[in-house]
C-alpha cells in the first residue's frame, strides 16, 4: 500500500515538474513566433486615418479656405515585451501606475497618494501668498482627505476610502488643484478642492444606475505604449508665410491649423468616466452627476470575427480622447480667440477673460488581445458613433483594391509569416489537450495583457480566439475549436495507445493502465514523458508457461496468469567439516533433514567435493 502511494506521489511530482518545463519551453517558442509576426506585420495594416474626422461643426470643416480637412490617425506599435510579467510588474507599480497608490508626484514636496493604513488621501503641495509688499511667497500645505471632509491634520472623523477611483490627469499644461474621486461604498462622486479645502459630494449614482462600476476617471487609457493616436484640425494656407516667400509654388505653400490645437485630455465641462462594462459616461464637473454617454470602447476586428462590444479587460490597449473647443471671450461676450484641446493656463486667463468650453465629441482606439488588430472610432457630442475604421491591409487587384483584415495579414501575408503562424499553431497543439479545452472555456475571463504571460491556460491561442470571437452558434463554435486542436487530440490518442501498450507489456494492473491512458489522453506529451520517467525499470524475465516477458516481482505472470515458481533457496543440509583424526581429508556429515533432491547424487561422491 505504501509503495502504491509512493508511486502515485512520484508520478504527480514528476508530472508537475515535466508540465512546468514543457510549458516554459512552449511559451518561449510561441513568444518568439508572436514577436516575429508582429515585427514583420505590414506597415499599412498598422495605421488608420479617418478624414474628415466628423467632430467639428460644418462652419469650421467646410470653410472654403480649408485645404486639408481635420483627421484622426492612429498607429499600432509593437511592444510585446512590455506585457511580460516582470516589466508589467514594475510599470504598473511605479508612481501613477495602475496598481500604485501614488496618484501624482511632481517632486519630493509635491505629491498625492492614498495612505492605505488610514484610508485617506494625503496631498502635499504649495499655495502662493502675496505679501503686503507684493512679494509672492510659496507656502507648503498638506491635507488629509477622507470621504467626509478635508483637514490639515490627520483626523479619523474624515472617514476612509476603500480602493477609491481617482481622476487621472495627463495634461502638462493644465494642472488643477482639484480632483474628482469615486467612492464605491457611497456610490457617489466627490470633488476635492485643495484651494478651498472642501470635499463636495455628488448625487447617489447607485439610484439611477444600480450596477454602476467605474474603473477610470479623466484620462482613459490602458497600456499607452501600444499605440499612437492624434487629431489634427483642418488646415488652411498660411498667408503670412506666403507673403514672406512669394516665390513658392501653390502646392509648396505652408499650411497652418484653422484654430490652434493642444493636447486632448480634458473634456471641458465634463469628465470622461469608463465603466466596467465598456461604456464611457460624461460626468458633469459641477453637479458631479452622470449626464450622458460619450460612447463605448470600440471592439476591433479579430481573426475570427468582429467584437461588437468589449469591456476594458478584453482590450490589450485603449485610449479615449475628448475634443473640446475653447472660446476665449471678453466681458462683453465677444470671442477674440479659439483653441482646441486643453487651454494653456485657464487660471491665469480667467482673471481677465472668460473661457467657454464646448465638448465636441471623442475618439477612441481599441487593440485586440493578440495586438494584431486595432479599431479607431469617432463619437459625436451625444455619444453616437459617427465613424469607425479597422486596421486592414490594402491589396491591389486588377481593377479594384481588396482589403485584408490586419490579423489575417499579419498571420499570412508576408514572407515567413505562414511559417511562424504554423509554428505557433503547432506549439499550441503540443500543449496538453485538456488545457487547450480549458482555454476555450476560460477565454474571456482573463485580462488581455495577462494572456501574454499565461503558461498553462492560453487565452491568446487560436482555440481561445474561436471561443471569444466566432459568431456562430455554440455547437458550431465548439466543433470549430475541436477542429483547430485536432492535431493535439490525434497526438494524445497515439501517445495514449503507446502508453497503454507499454503498460500492458510492463504488467500494470488494468486500473492503473486505464488511469495512465486517460492521463495521457488529457495531458498529451507531458504525460507521456512523465510515464517514461516513472515507469518501473526492473528487468523482465521469460515466463516458463507462455514464453513472453514477465515481471519477476509479481506472483503471477501478467501475460498468462501462470503462478511464479520461485526456486527455494534452502541451505544444504550437509556440511563440510574438518576431521581431526584424518588430517587433510574432509568428511560430509548428513543432518537429520537429508540433502535436497538435486544434491542427492553427490552423497555418494564425497571425493568430488
Amino acid at each position, binding site marked *: 500500500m505504501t509503495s502504491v502511494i509512493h508511486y502515485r*506521489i512520484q508520478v504527480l*511530482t514528476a508530472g508537475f515538474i515535466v508540465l512546468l518545463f514543457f510549458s516554459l519551453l512552449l511559451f518561449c517558442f510561441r513568444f518568439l513566433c508572436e514577436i516575429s509576426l508582429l515585427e514583420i506585420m505590414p506597415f499599412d495594416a498598422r495605421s488608420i486615418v479617418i478624414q474628415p474626422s466628423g467632430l467639428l461643426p460644418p462652419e469650421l470643416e467646410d470653410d472654403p479656405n480649408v485645404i486639408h480637412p481635420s483627421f484622426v490617425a492612429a498607429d499600432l506599435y509593437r511592444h510585446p515585451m512590455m506585457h*511580460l*510579467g516582470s516589466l508589467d510588474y514594475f510599470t504598473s507599480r*511605479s508612481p501613477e501606475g495602475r496598481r500604485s497608490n501614488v496618484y501624482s508626484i511632481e517632486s519630493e514636496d509635491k505629491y498625492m497618494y492614498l495612505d492605505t493604513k488610514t484610508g485617506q488621501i494625503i496631498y502635499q503641495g504649495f499655495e502662493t501668498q502675496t505679501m503686503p509688499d507684493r512679494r509672492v511667497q510659496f507656502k507648503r500645505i498638506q491635507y488629509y482627505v477622507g470621504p467626509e471632509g478635508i483637514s490639515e491634520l490627520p483626523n479619523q472623523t474624515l472617514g476612509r476610502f476603500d480602493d477609491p477611483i481617482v481622476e487621472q490627469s495627463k495634461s502638462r499644461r493644465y494642472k488643477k488643484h482639484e480632483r474628482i474621486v469615486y467612492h464605491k461604498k457611497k456610490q457617489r462622486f466627490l470633488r476635492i478642492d485643495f484651494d478651498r479645502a472642501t470635499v463636495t459630494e455628488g448625487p447617489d449614482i447607485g439610484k439611477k444606475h444600480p450596477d454602476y462600476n467605474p474603473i477610470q476617471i479623466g484620462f482613459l487609457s490602458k497600456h499607452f505604449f501600444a499605440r499612437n493616436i492624434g487629431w489634427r484640425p483642418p488646415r488652411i494656407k498660411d498667408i503670412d508665410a506666403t507673403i514672406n516667400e512669394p516665390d513658392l509654388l501653390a502646392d509648396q505653400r505652408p499650411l497652418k491649423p484653422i484654430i490652434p490645437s493642444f493636447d486632448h485630455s480634458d473634456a471641458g465641462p465634463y469628465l470622461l468616466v469608463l465603466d466596467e462594462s465598456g461604456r464611457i459616461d460624461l460626468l458633469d464637473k459641477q453637479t458631479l452627476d452622470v449626464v450622458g454617454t460619450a460612447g463605448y470602447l470600440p471592439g476591433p476586428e479579430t481573426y475570427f470575427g468582429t467584437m461588437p462590444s468589449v469591456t476594458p479587460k478584453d482590450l490589450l490597449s485603449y485610449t479615449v480622447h475628448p475634443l473640446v473647443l475653447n472660446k476665449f471671450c471678453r466681458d462683453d461676450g465677444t470671442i477674440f480667440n479659439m483653441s482646441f484641446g486643453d487651454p494653456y493656463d485657464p487660471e491665469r486667463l480667467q482673471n481677465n477673460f472668460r473661457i467657454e468650453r464646448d465638448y465636441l465629441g471623442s475618439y477612441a482606439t481599441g487593440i485586440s488581445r493578440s495586438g494584431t488588430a486595432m479599431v479607431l472610432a469617432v463619437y459625436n457630442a451625444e455619444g453616437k458613433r459617427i465613424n469607425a475604421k479597422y486596421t486592414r491591409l490594402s491589396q491591389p487587384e486588377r481593377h479594384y483594391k481588396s482589403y485584408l483584415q490586419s490579423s489575417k495579414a499579419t498571420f499570412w501575408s508576408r514572407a515567413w509569416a505562414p511559417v511562424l503562424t504554423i509554428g505557433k499553431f503547432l506549439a499550441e497543439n503540443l500543449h496538453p489537450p485538456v488545457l487547450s479545452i480549458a482555454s476555450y472555456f476560460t477565454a474571456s475571463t482573463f485580462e488581455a495583457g495577462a494572456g501574454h504571460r499565461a*503558461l498553462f491556460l492560453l487565452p491568446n491561442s487560436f482555440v481561445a480566439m474561436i471561443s471569444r470571437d466566432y459568431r456562430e452558434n455554440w455547437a458550431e463554435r465548439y466543433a470549430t475549436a475541436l477542429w483547430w486542436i485536432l492535431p493535439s487530440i490525434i497526438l494524445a490518442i497515439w501517445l495514449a495507445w503507446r502508453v497503454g501498450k507499454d503498460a500492458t507489456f510492463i504488467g500494470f494492473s488494468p486500473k492503473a493502465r486505464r488511469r495512465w491512458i486517460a492521463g495521457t489522453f488529457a495531458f498529451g506529451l507531458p504525460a507521456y514523458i512523465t510515464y517514461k520517467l516513472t515507469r518501473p525499470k526492473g528487468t523482465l524475465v521469460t515466463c516458463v508457461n507462455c514464453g513472453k516477458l514477465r515481471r519477476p516481482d509479481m506472483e503471477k505472470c501478467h501475460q498468462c496468469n501462470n503462478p511464479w515458481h520461485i526456486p527455494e533457496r534452502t541451505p544444504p543440509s550437509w556440511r563440510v567439516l574438518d576431521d581431526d583424526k584424518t588430517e587433510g581429508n574432509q568428511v560430509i556429515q548428513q543432518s537429520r533433514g537429508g540433502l535436497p533432491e538435486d544434491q542427492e547424487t553427490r552423497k555418494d561422491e564425497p571425493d568430488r567435493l
Partner: protein
Amino acid sequence: MFTLIKREIQDHFLYLIGSVVLTAILIVALTTFAFHQDTRIDWDDLIAPIIPIAILIMLGFCAMGVSQMYADRNRRISAFVSTLPVTRTHILFARIATGIITILILLIPLIVTTAILIRWFEPPIPMYAGIIFDISLTAFLMMLACYCIGLLTGWNPSKVIPTFGALVLTCILVPLVIIKGFGWEIAMILSVFIAALLIRTWQTFTSASL
C-alpha cells in the same frame, strides 16, 4: 542534526564564502546606484546589470545542490553516515538546511540594504509599497528551486546529467521570472515546483541502496 548541518557547511564552505562576497559586491553596487538616482527608480538601469548576475546566482545555487549530491553519491558519504544513528532523511534535511542558510546569507543583507536605501532616498510616501517583499520572496523561491534542481539532478553516477541536465533545467526555469513577474502567482507556481522537487529528491535519496 546540528552536527550534520555543521559538517555540510564545512564541506561546502566555498559556496558560503561566495555568497558573502557576492552580497558585498551587490550591496556596493546598489548603494552606488541609489546615490546616482533621482526620486524615481529608472528600472532599465537597475534591471539590465542585475539579469546576468541573477543568472550567475541561480547557476551557483544549482551547482551547490549538484555538488552536495554528486559528492555523496560518488564518495558514498550518506552510506557511511547511515551506519551511525542518523537516517537519510536527517542527512537530506541537513543538506537542505545548509542550502537555505546559504541563500539567506546572500539575500537578507541585500533586503536590509535595499529597505534602508529606499527609506533613505524615497520621498516620505510609499512609492514602492510591497515591491521589496514581492521581489525578495520570488528571489528566495527561485534560488531554492534552482538549488533543488541541483539536488535532484546531482544524484546520478554519470557526469553528464548533473552538469548539463542541471544547467539546461536552470536555464529553462529562470525565464519564469521574466514571464510571470513577481507576486503571488509565481510564488504559488514555485512553491509547488519546489515541493515536487524535494519530494522526488527525498524519494530517490532515501530509496537508494547503501
